[in-house]
Structure formats: structure tokens, C-alpha cells
């Protein structure tokens, strides 16, 4: 009976989703030849003006790197306030967690859109957008690392007369370094991926080139940009994995 109720609820949920999305298979079928034509036209990929593309790729890496760094600076005090064993102000524990959840809840793309309106087009707006969203993710991951760390060394430091802040910096920070650094690298790697599309809203990086190429239906160029994006993401992934292994 209970299982039937669950299945019914699931069915209702999927039914509602289908009503909203209205999947139209004949339309997909009709569009397939167009997709095939574009795919055919994409070969060979157009790497002309490679220095410009590489400049955009560097912009993407810079947005992600500076954005993640700024995010880490914003996240540090919030993570400390949002970690029960080390928070110096218990009163701010829940507000700090709410701020982290809010930052995480709004996508970097949306923040970038707002910053483009506020500070103008370009990678600076992208960096700010990435930083705000990533601060929520990093703060959340760091506060959880601090909360789940072995509390015995912290207690030993407190029993030796250390203040809570001293004990946190001297004992918990080094103890959680593999987790916190790993979280930071993971978010940086995620930000590289996210930064590749920020250009769609005018916030710099490879996305800007991608949008231009799609608008011009220049699919050879689109393929070249996609190849660059995939190479960039894979390189970031490998580098991040290598650094994480070394820190373990």
C-alpha cells in the first residue's frame, strides 16, 4: 500500500514535469538533419586566430583562479563562524550558515549577470560572480571539515590554556588541511568549467567567443572552441587531482 502511494506520487511528479517541458519528439526528429549538417560543417575545426582564442582561454583561467581566491578569503571567516566547535560567537552560527546557503543557492552565472549590469562587460564582472557563488561552496565545505575533524587535539590545546582561536589556528587548520585544500581545488576546477560559459552574459572568457561563433553559425569555430574548453577542463582536472594526491 505504502509502495503504491510512493509510486503514485512519483508518477504525479513526472506527469507534472512532462506537462511543463512538453517533450516533442517529432520536433527533435525534424531538427536532426540540421544538427547533422552543422556537425558536418564543423570539420575541420577552425583554429584560425589561435592567439585570440588562447587569450580568451587564459581569461577563463584567470577568472576562475582570482574568483576562487577571493571566494576563499570571503569564505574563511564565514566557515569559522559556521563551524560549531570553533565559532567564537555562537549567536552567529545560524546566520553564518544562512549566508553560506544563500551564496551557494544563487548560481555564479546569475551573479555574473548582475555584476555585468553593475560594473560593465568583461572578466572583472565574471570574477566577482564566480567569487560570490564559490564563497558559499567553499565556506560550507570548510565548515563541515572543521566540524567533522577529530576534536581531541582541539580539546587538548584548550586544556593547555589556549584560546579557542589559537586552538583552531594551531591545531584544527593543519589537521584539516588535506580536506580544506582539496575542497578549494575542487571548487577551482568547477570554476574553470563554470567560467567557460560566463562569456554568454558578457562576463569574459571563452564563452564570449563561443557566443559569437554560435550567433554567426560558424560551427567549425564552435568546434575549435569546444576542443579548447575540453582541453582546459581536463588539464584543470588532472592538475587538481595531482595536487590533491600530494596533499593526502
Amino acid at each position, binding site marked *: 500500500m505504502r509502495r503504491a502511494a510512493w509510486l503514485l506520487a512519483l508518477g504525479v511528479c513526472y506527469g507534472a514535469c512532462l506537462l511543463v517541458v512538453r517533450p516533442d519528439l517529432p520536433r527533435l526528429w525534424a531538427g536532426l538533419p540540421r544538427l547533422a549538417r552543422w556537425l558536418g560543417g564543423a570539420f575541420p575545426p577552425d583554429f584560425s586566430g589561435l592567439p585570440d582564442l588562447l587569450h580568451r582561454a587564459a581569461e577563463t583561467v584567470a577568472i576562475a583562479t582570482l574568483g576562487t581566491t577571493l571566494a576563499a578569503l570571503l569564505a574563511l571567516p564565514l566557515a569559522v563562524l559556521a563551524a560549531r566547535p570553533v565559532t567564537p560567537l555562537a549567536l552567529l552560527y545560524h546566520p553564518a550558515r544562512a549566508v553560506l546557503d544563500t551564496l551557494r543557492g544563487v548560481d555564479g552565472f546569475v551573479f555574473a549577470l548582475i555584476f555585468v549590469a553593475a560594473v560593465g562587460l568583461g572578466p572583472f564582472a565574471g570574477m566577482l560572480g564566480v567569487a560570490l557563488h564559490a564563497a558559499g561552496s567553499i565556506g560550507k565545505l570548510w565548515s563541515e571539515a572543521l566540524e567533522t575533524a577529530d576534536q*581531541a*587535539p582541539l*580539546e*587538548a*590545546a*584548550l*586544556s*593547555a*590554556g*589556549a*584560546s579557542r*582561536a*589559537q*586552538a583552531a*589556528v*594551531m*591545531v584544527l587548520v*593543519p*589537521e584539516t*588541511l588535506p580536506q580544506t585544500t582539496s575542497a578549494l581545488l575542487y571548487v577551482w576546477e568547477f570554476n574553470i568549467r563554470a567560467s567557460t560559459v560566463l562569456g554568454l552574459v558578457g562576463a569574459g572568457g571563452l564563452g564570449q567567443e563561443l557566443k559569437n561563433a554560435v550567433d554567426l553559425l560558424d560551427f567549425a569555430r564552435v568546434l575549435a572552441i569546444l576542443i579548447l574548453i575540453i582541453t582546459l577542463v581536463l588539464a584543470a582536472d588532472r592538475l587538481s587531482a595531482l595536487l590533491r594526491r600530494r596533499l593526502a
Partner: protein
Amino acid sequence: MLRVRGLRVALGGRVILRDVALAVAPGEVVALEGPSGAGKTTLLRAIAGLLPIEAGQVEAAARPALVFQQHALAGRLTAQGNVLVGALGRLGFWRPALRWWPAVETAAAAECLARVGLADCAGQRADRLSGGQRQRVAVARALMQRAPVLLADEPVASLDPENAAAVLALLRGLAAREGLAVLVALHQPDLAQRYADRRLRLEEGQLCPT
């Protein structure tokens, strides 16, 4: 000198310790025995100031140092880094945070490690030391506090007989040579008999005659 009078501790509304009174003189090693759950750890933590006291008094010249049962070392710090944690109570925030320790403290940490026989292990990470070595580092961290009273909560519970004997002999030697008042919770009566000057028994939160 450690003196405890009429100590009463309640946790979560349950009375754990009732009217506990004891004294440990400088240079004396007192063993605290009793079954699991008798309140030995609670008593040591209350004396160390880690638990609130409902009634009674703890008198000691300075905050007692506590050696924890499972050493409670920071595994990624070196032995010396862990010993230096014992000095945090007398230092400000920034110098230790920047790992810019006063030379006098690093020399003191080296000396504490030498006193527990680990002068050669200063630069080794704590999680790469043996169980016996870790417990000695925990003792060195307690010594770094320069407290006249040393509390040890079953410091040999997880050690093999050889290392257990070595750690207790170390505590015994520190009491004799340096005049520390040592109160050590122990599970093994034979070790208490061998290394303690006096034995106390705690049962259901009260001290009983041994």
C-alpha cells in the same frame, strides 16, 4: 600540591561525582583506580577545568596539565609542534599563528622532548610515531605547560606492556626528580601497585577505601 574538597559534578542532570576529596603532594604519584564508568575521567577533566563543577573546590598553584587517554595529538603536526601547543596559554595569538615561536619556547619544547626521551623525534610528524612515542609526546606537551600538577587519564590504556611500563616509569621519574604532583587514572592494579605511592579507588562517583 593538588587539593580537592567536596567536589560534585553533574552532567546532563545526572550526578557523576559526589563529595570527592583528595590531595596529592609534590613528588607524589597517586593512582586513581575504579571500574569503567566510575567517574575517573570526569574527575580528572573537572580538576583540569574542562568540566563545570557544581560544588566543591580544586586548589592548585596553577592550572593542572592533563595527559589524555588517546594522546590527543594533532597528527599532521611534528612532535615539536604538538609540544609547543602546551605553551599557547602564555602566548598571544599572532606569533604562534604565524609559526614565529619565541626562541625560548622552541628551546623549552626541545628540552621537554629530551625529558621524555624523544630528543631525536622533534621533526617527525606525530602520526608517524609509535603509540608509546605519541604518549610520550603528550606527556612532553603537558610538561610544556610548566604546571606543578600533572593529571593523566589512563595514559597506558592503548599501549603494550613494555611501553606502558616505560610511560609510567617516566611519570614516576618526573614526580621524583621535578617534584610534580601526579594523579594518574589506571585500570591495571599491578601497574598501580608498582608505580604509585598511593592508590585511590573511585566507585559510582565516590572515593572508597582501597
